């Protein structure tokens, strides 16, 4: 956190000064470790074992927050009899289909919910999780029934002992014990513990389950929804949260509504049923209002009840259309045109070669950026030109480079990592040909509408009828505030016709409201740009709700109902946040309640009540279909109801827990251009004996598009380097400040060597494992102030099935002293490694490795 979010880290330092204990668990000793109370070196890719070990410690030692767990989590819910745990099937849960490489999740359901929820899982879902009718769920509040989630959990993690943690993670038992003690001692009524993660947890084939692991701990310890608690995702781009909320993502529509998928039947109602069941609790039950309002925002008067609000205008998805699948499709000549909007996949995406080769197959490419990034110049100075794999004169890709406007040259909002929208005002006009995306896409849309205005083709109707009339200034730039107003939504009829909506609860399914992103409704309440509020923090209380605007409804902390006990009283004075004020008949506190504001703790929904009315007064997890925090996910996740330790797709280590080596549901691509290293104890795995991981440095930003062109940042970290331990350096003959070549089945890259004791050889199972650390900011090109080989070139594509995010935080490699060969000799080196390891397209790609 100190490394990548130094300014956010001021609050950690502040807490530390007040006595908070800071523990840093990371394969790499970072600037965070330097000021942490404890640093725990861990093998990249082993965190679930570590987290599972903590779960076991909590359960074995009765360290969980019993009142919280019983009241606010699904610990007491009974799991159906058909469920078989991974502990009993060698690492697979019940329902695994070897053919499809996926699970039939019906056996994971709660007892009393006997069929697989209609919603499916993974990318087919919005953020609401699967829909679910909770009314018949059986429970045992003593937590003693063997099929309670609590007991299932206990059995599931029974083998995650400190010794097992050591064997898998390389963390000595006493150090592990110290973490367990610290985390549990600092949780409960009086204290809370916060977990912070970043892409070190998401870039795995089981990334979602990493987060689930910490969620289980936080729920058991009563750390969710309470001040100082929670799980904080530190996101790395100014509006990466916003770009998920208002997604430039294939599988969702604004506000985490799922994209409709092709199928039969494919009606509006079918679609709605995948989002919610009419019986479910919580605010997702109103999804129809959100969808209709979105469609009204996009197609205006053309969207009517009669035509299902133009639901048919939405294109359908048929599987994974994520960026990696798209890159593969480019290589297969399925994609003609590609827009890169402030993104540098030639450097920043996994498997850089596949990305660059993919782009060489395009008919046309539009790159919009502040700087002439490597993705715009791959055709003339990319690494494949040097190896002879590509020849400039043979690349048919037409490239448009359009310079972009900077944040000072346009108005708009960023949504930061805590879901807070903040408005930045335009300060100056963009220089030269630079334009904002807003202006560019507005213009593009206008021109496309003009171009196709006379078309009579049915496929052009959605464009022709698309609402696209934003006010423009004297220079022709569209008003960002106008767009935010549309996002916020407005009343279309009645007294308030034309006025902005003030909350998503005002949205209606009857076409009387429009709104582009329901969770953002309220950002323009009272016709005021709430995101632009800047009441100084010094003039506000510590929650500072009058600075910017956080979705939903300006709530700063989600699930904050859980900060009070079931009766609505704070768990403790020290940790008071929200409480029920019986006199006023409402929830009070420094934050906006994440709850129906006047619903008393004692409220119990009548039988059959659904939606918000279906939430009891002690159901704090209002977006969950059962109102509870999920220790066990009966559905929604494609790779299991509870996290299981699997080895990364490429690992020099055999899974110590299960015959099942890696996640049986990970997405693999068996292709000649995406070969994998042998893993575990497969033949040839010793050719790649080391673990490597990638990361950022404080001095740079991701693929370098906003840092490697700046002398002030470039001079601070001018060259690509690898970090190795002195022991590892000795083993391989690497010299400090010399060069090293790092090799995988995909490529070989060179880096300067930084020998440092910050890298720790791990002892696990009597074996020493060396890890190589690689910052990934550099790329091969001619325009940046500093350049170098790209760490992402080492990775292949293997994805988490839930979110299609690549595994790029743990893989195996070899490292050798000296510079890599250049030209075709580089390809020969990689080929030599492949043949030594006996690599074929099948290598490492067998999903099920449990032998029957």
């Amino acid at each position, binding site marked *: 956190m100190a490394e990548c979010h130094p*300014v*956010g880290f001021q609050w950690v330092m502040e807490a530390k000064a007040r006595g908070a204990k800071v523990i840093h668990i990371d394969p790499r000793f970072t600037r965070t470790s330097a000021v942490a109370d404890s640093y725990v070196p861990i093998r990249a890719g082993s965190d679930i074992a570590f987290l599972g070990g903590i779960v076991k410690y909590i359960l074995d030692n009765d360290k969980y927050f019993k009142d919280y767990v019983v009241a606010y989590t699904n610990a007491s819910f009974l799991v159906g009899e058909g469920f078989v745990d991974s502990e009993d099937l060698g690492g697979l849960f019940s329902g695994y289909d070897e053919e499809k490489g996926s699970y039939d999740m019906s056996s994971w359901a709660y007892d009393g919910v006997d069929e697989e929820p209609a919603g499916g899982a993974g990318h087919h879902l919005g953020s609401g999780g699967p829909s679910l009718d909770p009314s018949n769920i059986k429970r045992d509040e003593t937590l003693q029934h063997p099929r309670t989630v609590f007991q299932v959990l206990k059995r599931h993690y029974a083998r995650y002992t400190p010794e097992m943690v050591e064997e898998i993670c390389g963390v000595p038992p006493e150090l592990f014990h110290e973490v367990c003690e610290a985390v549990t001692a600092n949780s409960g009524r009086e204290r809370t513990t916060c977990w912070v993660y970043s892409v070190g947890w998401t870039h795995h084939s089981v990334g979602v389950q990493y987060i689930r692991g910490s969620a289980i701990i936080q729920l058991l310890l009563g750390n969710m929804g309470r001040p100082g608690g929670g799980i904080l995702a530190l*996101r*790395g*781009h*100014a509006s990466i949260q916003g*770009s998920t909320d208002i*997604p430039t*993502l*294939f599988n969702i529509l604004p506000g985490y509504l799922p994209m409709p998928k*092709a199928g039969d039947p*494919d009606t509006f109602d079918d679609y709605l049923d995948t989002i919610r069941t009419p019986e479910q609790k919580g605010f997702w039950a109103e999804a129809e209002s959100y969808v209709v309002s979105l469609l009204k925002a*996009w197609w205006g008067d053309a969207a009517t009840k009669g035509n299902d609000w133009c639901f048919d*205008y939405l*294109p*359908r998805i*048929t599987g994974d*259309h994520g960026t*990696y699948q798209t890159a593969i499709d*480019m290589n297969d000549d399925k*994609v003609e045109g*590609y827009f890169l*909007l402030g*993104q540098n*996949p030639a450097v920043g995406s996994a498997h850089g070669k596949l990305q660059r080769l993919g782009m060489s197959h395009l008919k*046309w490419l539009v790159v919009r*950026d502040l700087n*002439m990034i490597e993705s715009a110049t791959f055709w003339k100075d990319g690494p494949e030109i040097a190896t002879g794999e590509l020849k*400039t004169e043979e690349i048919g890709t037409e490239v448009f*480079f359009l*310079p972009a406007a900077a944040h*000072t040259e346009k108005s*708009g909002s*960023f*949504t930061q*990592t805590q879901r807070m929208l903040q*408005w*930045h005002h*335009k*300060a*100056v006009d963009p*220089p030269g*040909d630079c334009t904002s995306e807003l202006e560019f896409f507005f213009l593009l849309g206008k021109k*496309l509408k003009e*171009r196709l205005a006379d078309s009579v083709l049915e496929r052009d109707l*959605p*464009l022709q009828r698309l609402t696209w009339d934003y006010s423009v200034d004297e220079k022709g730039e569209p008003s960002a505030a106008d*767009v*935010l107003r549309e*996002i916020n939504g407005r009343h279309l009829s009645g007294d308030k016709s034309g006025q902005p909506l003030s909350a998503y609860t005002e949205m209606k399914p009857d076409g009387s409201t429009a709104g*582009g992103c329901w969770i953002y409704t309220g950002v323009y309440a009272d016709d005021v740009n709430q995101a632009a509020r*800047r*009441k*100084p923090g010094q003039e506000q209380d510590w929650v*500072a709700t009058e*600075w910017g605007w956080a979705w939903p409804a300006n709530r700063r902390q989600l699930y904050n109902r859980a900060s009070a006990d079931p009766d609505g009283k704070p768990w403790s004075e020290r940790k008071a946040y929200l409480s029920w004020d019986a006199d006023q008949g409402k929830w009070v506190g420094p934050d906006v309640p994440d709850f129906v504001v006047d619903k008393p703790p004692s409220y119990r929904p009548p039988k059959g009540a659904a939606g918000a009315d279906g939430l009891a007064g002690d159901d704090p997890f209002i977006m969950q279909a059962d109102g509870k925090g999920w220790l066990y996910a009966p559905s929604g996740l494609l790779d299991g109801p509870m996290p299981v330790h699997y080895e990364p797709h490429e690992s020099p280590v055999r899974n110590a827990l299960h015959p099942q080596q890696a996640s049986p549901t990970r997405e693999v691509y068996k292709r000649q251009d995406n070969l994998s290293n042998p893993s575990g104890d497969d033949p040839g795995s010793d050719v790649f004996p080391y673990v490597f991981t990638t990361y950022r440095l404080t001095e740079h*930003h991701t693929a370098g598009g906003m*840092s490697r062109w*700046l002398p*002030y940042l470039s001079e601070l970290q001018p060259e690509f380097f690898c970090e190795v331990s002195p022991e590892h350096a000795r083993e391989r003959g690497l010299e400090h400040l010399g060069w090293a070549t790092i090799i995988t089945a995909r490529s070989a890259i060179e880096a300067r060597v930084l020998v440092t004791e910050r890298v720790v050889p791990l002892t696990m199972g009597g074996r020493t494992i060396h890890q190589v650390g690689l910052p990934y900011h550099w790329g091969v090109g001619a325009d940046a102030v500093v350049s170098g080989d790209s760490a992402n070139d080492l990775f292949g594509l293997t994805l988490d099935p839930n979110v299609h995010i690549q595994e790029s935080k743990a893989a195996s490699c070899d490292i050798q002293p000296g510079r890599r060969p250049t030209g075709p000799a580089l390809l020969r080196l990689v080929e030599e490694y492949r043949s030594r390891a006996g690599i074929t397209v099948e290598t490492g790609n067998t999903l099920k490795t449990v032998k029957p």
Partner: protein
Amino acid sequence: MDLRTTFLSWPVVRQLTGDDPLGRGRAAQSAHTAALVPRTSTADRVVDSVCPYCAVGCGQKVYVKDERVIQIEGDPSSPVSRGRLCPKGSASEQLVNSPGRATRVRYRKPFATDWQDLDLETAVDMIVERIVDTRKRTWQDIDANGHKTRRTLGIASLGGATLDNEENYLIKKLFTALGAIQVENQARI
């Protein structure tokens, strides 16, 4: 210039006549130095902004003089950042004013070995044509199973995590209306 004034402002004279006989302080101060003011105080305007790098969302103040950004620093009012900035945030002024920044449209013809110039309007018109053509060629009303898809898989987009919400909204809205579904950003990466 008045010779007398010039002589009296000679630091040696000021040394001999003032409180700084050793000439190490006030006597040695030049007129230029005495007139120094921070450039922020002479800015034409100060604009509220937000750091464009990571997602902490630090508040920034952008100082503008003669329609040029002359300084960017932290906004002390921000309850998030309290006026502080990391090295990247502190480099924001260089980000927007860097001489290495690309400010002209560049165009590479298929198979060409170098860039050529192109004006913005023409570039947008050409992109419109490419979209229309590709969409026409790759349009898919139904998939292999006969299910309605009404889309194109011929156009993809990547980016958005550094962009404004409003920009992403238009991107998603336009591409969806065009039937282009491979709209992605850093959040997947």
